[in-house]
């Protein structure tokens, strides 16, 4: 959970952490802002044969090959309808794109107000979430990008995720 370690270091006001909010299905997620490189509309995604289910494919983003991860599949949601968007992240020198439905605003939240995942959260979701923030009108799950990448690389489909 290395991004949690960044709390306070990156944030301007002591223990606040900035999140880029994204929507996947009905749910609002927050990605730590330092992880997010850019937001783009994925085009011309090439399927990668024999790859894990969570991998949507790869695409060429200004000359870099970006591995696209399908978060809906990781979360066990239905197939997305229509064109989505993607959040570009960097991890150990490699570029990944997280497929999302929509991107929202940037929120600065107090790290202390973060609450643990509720015990009854779907195992697939809990495996990717690093806590919950209560916003004015809804809940925002913090997406642990490292875990997402681990899952995408190792978990072949959902059973493995459920098992955890």
């Amino acid at each position, binding site marked *: 959970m290395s991004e949690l370690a960044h709390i306070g270091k990156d944030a301007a006001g002591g223990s606040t952490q900035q999140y880029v909010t994204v929507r996947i299905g009905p749910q609002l997620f927050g990605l730590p802002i330092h992880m997010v490189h850019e937001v783009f509309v994925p085009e*011309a995604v*090439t*399927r*990668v*044969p*024999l*790859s*894990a289910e969570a*991998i949507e494919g*790869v*695409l*060429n983003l*200004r*000359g870099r*090959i970006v*591995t696209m991860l399908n978060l809906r599949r990781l979360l066990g949601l239905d197939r997305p309808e229509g064109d989505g968007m993607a959040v570009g992240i960097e991890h*150990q020198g*490699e*570029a*990944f794109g997280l497929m999302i439905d929509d991107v929202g605003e940037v929120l600065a939240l107090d790290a202390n107000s973060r609450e643990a995942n509720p015990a009854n959260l779907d195992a697939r979701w809990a495996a990717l979430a690093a806590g919950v923030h209560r916003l004015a009108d809804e809940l925002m799950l913090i997406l642990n990008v490292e875990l997402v*990448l681990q899952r*995408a*690389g190792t978990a072949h489909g959902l059973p493995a995720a459920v098992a955890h």
Partner: protein
Amino acid sequence: MDDLLREFLTETNESLDVADVELVKFEQDPNNAEILNNIFRLVHTIKGTCGFIGLARLAALAHAAETLMDKFREGRPVTTDAVGLVLSTIDRIKVLMAALEDSGGREPDGSDRDLIALLEAMAAAEPEPVAALPEPEPEIAPAPPAQQLERDLLPGEIPLDELERLFRETEVELPARAPVAAPAAVAPPAAKVLDLPAAGKALDKAPVGKAPAGKPQGAAAVPPASPKEGAPRGEEVAHASAISAQSIRVSVGVLEQLMTMVSELVLTRNQLMEIARRHENSEYKVPLQRLSNVTGELQDAVMRTRMQPIGNAWQKLPRIVRDLAQDLGKLIDLEQIGAETELDRQVLDQIKDPLTHMVRNSADHGLESPDERRAAGKSERGLIRLSAYHEGGHVIVEISDDGRGLNVARIRTKVIENGLAAEAEVAKMSDAQVFRYIFHAGLSTAEKVTNVSGRGVGMDVVRSNIEAIGGTVEVRSRAGQGSTFIIKIPLTLAIVPALIVRAEGERFALPQSAVVELVRVQPGSDHAVKWLNDAPVLCLRDKLLPIVSLGSLLGLSTGGAARPTGGSDDALIVVLKVGHQTFGVVVDAVSHTEEIVVKPMSSALRQIPMVSGSTILGDGRVIMIVDPGGLAQSAAARAAEAEEDSRAAHEEVRRAVSEERTSLLLFRAGSRNLKAVPLALVTRLEELEVASIERVKGYPVIQYRGALIPVLYANEEVRRAESGTQPMLVFSDDGRTMGLVVDEIVDIVETPFDLQLSPSNMPEVLGATVVSGQATELLDVGFYINVAFGERFVQMLRPAARARLLLVDDSSFHRDMLAPVLKGNGYEVTACASAREALERLEDEGGFDAIVSDVELPDMDGFALASAVRSNPRRQNLPIIALSAGRDRDAIERGRAAGFTDYVAKFDRSGLIAALKEFAGHQGAAA
């Protein structure tokens, strides 16, 4: 670890490698003052650098080595021991360096007193009075700088006393050149100590100052070196230093980044060109063309920065060979040709280990000991030659030795022992094919395991390493003349020519290096796709290639794994060759070839089999690069499955055979009962023109194919037609052909066979069996042949003492078929159903003149029987004749090896009789 230390480590490691090489050269050529000076300089630099950074242990060690080296410069004769000692000192320094790197800059604890003591002892021993220009040791000896600086020196800086020494030496010993060399040597360092580290470093690396300083010393130490000789060398050194001064050190990361950006530029250019093609009269056209050219040149230039001479990978080899030669007590020369041949550094890294391994192998197994070499009439010194050259986009590296060559016989045995191929297959292989097995896992032909090699790992790893970078390795060898390994590797891994193909709507890149040809299979084309069980194969000229579908291998096909119909009549097949495996890959379309820039897969995708990377095409789309090696493995796996299937099918056939399924020709002759003969014994079925029957000496004969053959009626009851035709079976037996007239041919059936011996008084009936619920009499073909031809034979062959035969066949049918024939030919026959029974009878009864045995017996087969029989020395000469359904050469070979005297096909009675006559006849007569 700070940059300073890292820089030091890199630099020193390089120096050490060079020192290794130089020392080995020096050992062979101890009078070469120049080499000595090179080494001295290197060790000296190491000592100096270590001193600066405060690495006391390293500095002390290097100092002791330097002191010894200095003795050589004074003219002390060079001994192997001394060089060995210096080499082990360098090894120790390497160990310390490694520890330093691991610990992030702390010198490991411990002492090098042992080595230093040895070095000092050797330096002190028998001081040579020869030294032409005695250079007082104390001047170099003080390792801790005599003159103290206010601060620690930076790496690359030279301590003051060092400069002073240089200055002194230069001035004193090189009066002629001093004006030129000395100021150059001294002035910059002087400035540098006053904080110009960069300049200082360049100086330290480029031997501008030190080379001329060291050079004349050497010349002086070796009196014969004439001034004339010295002068051009000095220039050479100066030239070399000028070159090195022009080069700078750039981190690999920067180069990689450059490469990526250039690739990017190439792609963008491609896209622009694409747009320009669509707009005919664009004013961009000319500038775009120029952009395109410049981009191409830039790409080439950047590619060149990644190139390194292959000599870098060879650097450690002289030392390795030297050490090996000492360990093994051999004399080995190492020749390097084409060390300047350049190839991509990524490739270089990959082949370093394989090369080392192969050179070790050559030294260990390839080359003989001096005694053996002398005995073989060769020079005592063995030669290992490394050569490298370019050949059309590839670099060829050859490692050859003039040793004993590969032991073909031994590899053959090994291959069989390790179950890599059946004995029969191996027997058919050419030597070249056999040699390839040395690249198989688990095949080491070394008679004994040495600490150098021979542990059964190695060549397979070599092969996989080389194949991993798209290279190939092969071996040539001639007994007594040595062997040559030829490695063919691509120049670079970053850009490869690839064939772009389409499968299931996706495009893929197939590296061109693996593509042999493209084949279009259409109805009516020369090539066809055939199905063997469920496995499709391509009949291409004289070869059968397994084919796989790219789409289904990559899991893209929607309609299941195989397309039993689709691929067969109209298919596009890319024939790939990977290693020794050639196979076809079915694709939907082939578009074009393109130089693609290989981009590594992200870590999340790296484990995917059959995909080795990705690339971006001109239209900006990412496509996968298919790994031919992975495809080959999958193809092999599928083939194995198919083989499994076909083996199962074989198994079924075998089971059927063991259930005595026999093809019988059913007919009627006389009575309503069905009669039968084994179909295998029937040569032809004919319609006999009754009118054509003639009589010779009262026997009916007909003209059949230009010869007169006897005709018999199956029995008394067979209708003797007056006219028209009547069915006739033709039997052939050793050139003797006869016709058997019957009433009606009914059918040919394949049926399980259970022969009931009939107590019938009819000699022509062998017995009865049930076919399709009907009792059927089996007629004895042998009887008829004997009747037609045999009476005389039988009479002749009935000597007073008949030869005794032991007939072994698990099938009662065959026993019953053969026994009468053999009896008819005058042998006394004892039949047994198994090999064990046969052996028992042989023990109990004895006195057999020959054994006639089926090869396929349950439990213990004919080969085992033959071996068992032969194991008794008294039966070494007992003829054993094998009966086998198949008569392929391999089985015959194997049979002979097991001890069979002769081999006869199962239904070849005349062959059997002939064999018996040949082998058992004499026996019989003798007995």
